[in-house]
Structure formats: C-alpha cells, structure tokens
C-alpha cells in the first residue's frame, strides 16, 4: 500500500496519484476494497490520458479525475458519480448502467456508446459516433457532436446544445435526439418531428440535470421514421 500515496484527509476521502500508482491499483481499490471502507470520495491526480480509469465501478462513490483521461473512462459505470476536469479519449462511460459521468472538457469518439442508463454530461464537444447504439442512457452535450452520432440508438435521450455532424441518428430505433444548432445531415430513417409538451419538459429536465442554461424552445426533435422496422419487398432493391 505504500505505493498508493494516499493523502488521506479523512476516512471518507482518498487520493490516488497516477504519477506513482497504477490504474490497476486504483481500480482494484474501487472494485474490491471500497465497499468495506468509509470512503465515499476518491480523487485521481495526474491521470495522464491513461485508459480505463475508474472503469467498472459498482458503488455510490464520487470520483474526481483531475486532468485528461484516456479510453473507456468510467466504462460500465453503475451507481458512481465521476467528474473529469479535462478531456477524455474514446468510449467514455461506454455501456454505463446508472450513476453519472461529467466531462468538463471534450470527449473523443463513441462517448456513451451502448449505455443502458445513467447520465453522461459533456461540457465541451463530443467527437464522432457519440451515443452509438445507446440503450437507455441520457447524454447531454454542451458543444457539438461529430458524424454518425446515435447510430442505431435504441433507447434514451441525446441532447445537443451545439451542432450535429453528418448522418445523425442513422438507423435509429426508439432513442430520441434533441438538437439546438444545425444538423449537417440526417442518417437513414431519422426525421425531424414536432416538439410536444412532453419533449419540452424532457429537454428542460435534462438541461437542468446538466446545468446548461438554454431555452427548451430552441431545440428540435429527431426520431426514427420507423421505415426500416419492416422489410419492404415492394421497394426497388438496388445493390
């Protein structure tokens, strides 16, 4: 344990400095030891872009990452609340089940990919394939998102305060996308639909959760036209 530079302020807080400790030591503490301690807040210093920081959490702990994370940060998260004071690499909060992840900077590709639940907030931009195959997660992006976002998204909400790239919501199932800015192009079977009162309420609630100060009336709803749900043998098939 002497390598863990544990600057213990009190019994409920713990610090890991990844300039000295490994990600494996951090994650083993979070997975195995944490439940039997009083620790409820963990700070990660000098993350240095390393992969899989705080991945696989399964306890109601607050994790503060003080710097830039690498791939799969907080992946598979359940119950924990993770804040990154920096940027993250590919697949932040991928397959999240519950809890929340907040990224103060930008997120690379596939943010929140296949997430089942919880809330992912990205204060900056998210790159390509944000929310790909999302299955119930709520994602709120303060900036813009890249191409192919919400591809085959099945459930959950994606709120974009900036612009969206090409092929937004391609082959969308029942996830709903709300965009405030410009959409470069919609993917196959995605269409703009009128906002209902339930949509305005949903956007207001999600913006409130994220702490973003926009009027819900500025958002548009993108959802599935459900045209791909059934095979159309009558259509001209050109391959």
């Amino acid at each position, binding site marked *: 344990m002497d390598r863990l530079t544990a600057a213990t302020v009190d019994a409920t807080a713990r610090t890991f400095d990844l300039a000295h400790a490994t990600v494996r030591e951090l994650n083993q503490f979070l997975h195995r030891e944490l439940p039997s301690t009083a620790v409820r807040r963990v700070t990660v210093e000098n993350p*240095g*872009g390393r992969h899989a920081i705080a991945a696989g959490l399964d306890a109601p702990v607050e994790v503060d990452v003080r*710097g830039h994370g*690498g791939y799969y940060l907080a992946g598979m998260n359940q119950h924990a609340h993770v804040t990154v004071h920096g940027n993250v690499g590919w697949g932040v909060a991928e397959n999240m089940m519950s809890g929340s992840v907040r990224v103060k900077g930008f997120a*690379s590709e596939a943010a929140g990919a296949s997430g089942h639940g919880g809330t992912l907030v990205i204060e900056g931009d998210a*790159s*390509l394939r944000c929310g790909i195959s999302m299955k119930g997660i709520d994602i709120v992006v303060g900036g813009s998102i*890249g*191409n192919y976002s919400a591809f085959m998204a099945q459930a959950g909400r994606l709120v974009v305060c900036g612009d969206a790239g090409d092929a937004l919501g391609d082959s969308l199932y029942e996830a709903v996308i709300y965009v405030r800015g410009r959409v470069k192009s919609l993917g196959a079977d995605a269409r703009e639909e009128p906002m209902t009162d339930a949509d305005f309420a949903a956007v207001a609630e999600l913006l409130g959760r994220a702490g973003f100060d926009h009027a819900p009336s500025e958002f548009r709803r993108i959802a599935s036209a459900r045209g791909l749900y059934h095979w159309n043998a009558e259509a001209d098939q050109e391959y």
Partner: protein
Amino acid sequence: MCGIVGLLVKKPALRAELGRLMVPMMVEMASRGPESAGLAVFTGALSDDHRKLSLYAPDWHYDWAAFEGAFITHFGTDASIRPKGNHAVITSDVAVERVKPWLRAQFPQLHVLAAGRTLDIYKDTGHPARVAERYDFGQLAGTHLVGHTRMATESAVTPDRAHPFTAGEDFCLVHNGTISNPYMIRRKLEHRGIRFETDNDTEAACRYLEWRMREGDDLEAALAKGFEELDGFYTFLIGTENKMALVRDAFACKPAIVAETDDYVAVASEFRALAHLPGVNEARLFEPMPEEIYSWTV
C-alpha cells in the same frame, strides 16, 4: 493498430531537444505498435548542390568505411558518411538519380530509406523503446520529426516495411490504418515509371501523394486529391522539408490528437503520449476532424 507521433518545435533553441522530447511519446505509443518503429527527423538543409541518403544494411557490423571508399572512387567526388550500426547517412554532391542505379547494381543488399537535403530516417523491427535506444533517438536534433510504432496488418514485419515511408526527396509519411485500394494506386503509378520497393499499402499512399506534388500540387492540394483517390482507413502524418501535415479519412476510425503551444506542435494517436510534454496542460488540445487538412510550417 499503430501509433503515430510528430513534433515540430517553433523556437530554434528547442531544436537540440527534439529527440529528447519525442522519445517518451514513442515509448508510450509502443502498446499500439510493439513490433517495429521508425523516425524521420528533419535537420538544417544542405546546400542546393548536396544531397544525403539514409541507408539500411542487413548487418549491424556492416563495413560502411569500405562502402564510402567505393562511393568516392566511383563518383570521383568527396563524400562523408555517418554510420549508426546497420544505418548510415551519406552526404555528397552526387545527384540522387545517379546514386540509386549504382547502389542497385553494386550494393543490392543496401536499402535506401530516404533522400534529400534535410531528411534522415531510422527504422527497424523490435520494440519501439529498443529501437529508440539502438539509434539514440534521444540525441537527435532538428526542426521537426515524424515517427511511428507498427502493428502490422497488411504486410510482413521487416525493416523496409516499417514506417516512415519516403518517396522522392524530403518527403515522408506515417500511417495508422489500412488502405483498401493500394494495388489500384500502384498500377496507376507504375504505369508512369514510379518504382515500388515493398508490397505495403502505406507505400502506395506515400508515392501517390509525392507524385501529385511533383505534378505541381502543393501539399494541401495533393492531400485533397488523396481524399478522392485513397480508399480506406487512415490517419496520415506527413513530413516535408518545412512542413508537418495531418489528415484523417472521412470515417475517422483512427485516432489523433494535437497539442499546440508557443513552443511546439505535438501530434500523437492518443493524449497519453503527450502527457509528459512541458506545458501540455496549458496547450491548445484538439482532435483533427475527418477530411480536414492540418499543416504547420517550420
């Protein structure tokens, strides 16, 4: 998977530090490409009438002094050689087009890695940390460099198939990804008398872009044509005499991140390769967008 690294220093005082700043970048990217590594470093330019060639020999104890003697005798001119094990850089006033046929005929075991006025290349198989030690990458000085760690998918693991690839003079390219139409590109170029040295897909991209520049395109125009003609997945980092350029294909499946400060521009596949750089936490950090051309001039 492969790793790419690039570094361009903006202040002349930092040129002596170029290799030292880069080595941890390359070592961190070894997990993306553990089997080969290579580096192109751009140094101060030789005079207009001089050229240097980076050469690779199959033997670490190759007799470079004998080679230098044969070179001087044949061309009847002065030459200087800087050996480093199985690599050497020979400098003379003989045109590259004259040296290459002579090498092929008299020294077929030698492989020309690079030619030009500013470019030295070192590349070999082995773990990138070992390759960096083998050729003292930490001691290299220059204005900019382009490096690579390789995990082979498209051709065998040999020194000549490691990156960077070069074509023409003072032009090199490293690649993370896979080109899907290298044989189409190759047939098109071979038709025009362009020689290929390996069966590697990246060589096709490298020779295509350099050919476009010899046809009159500037680097940016050549890259724009590359978006049309090169099919596949790629992040390319390109070095020329006075530029470093970065592009990603339309699908942007292969990563890259840029850190820019008043002192340097650093490029890598992932941020963790940049985390050690001085001032990186205050740097302007961004990921290149698909089909956008990013270039920096020395």
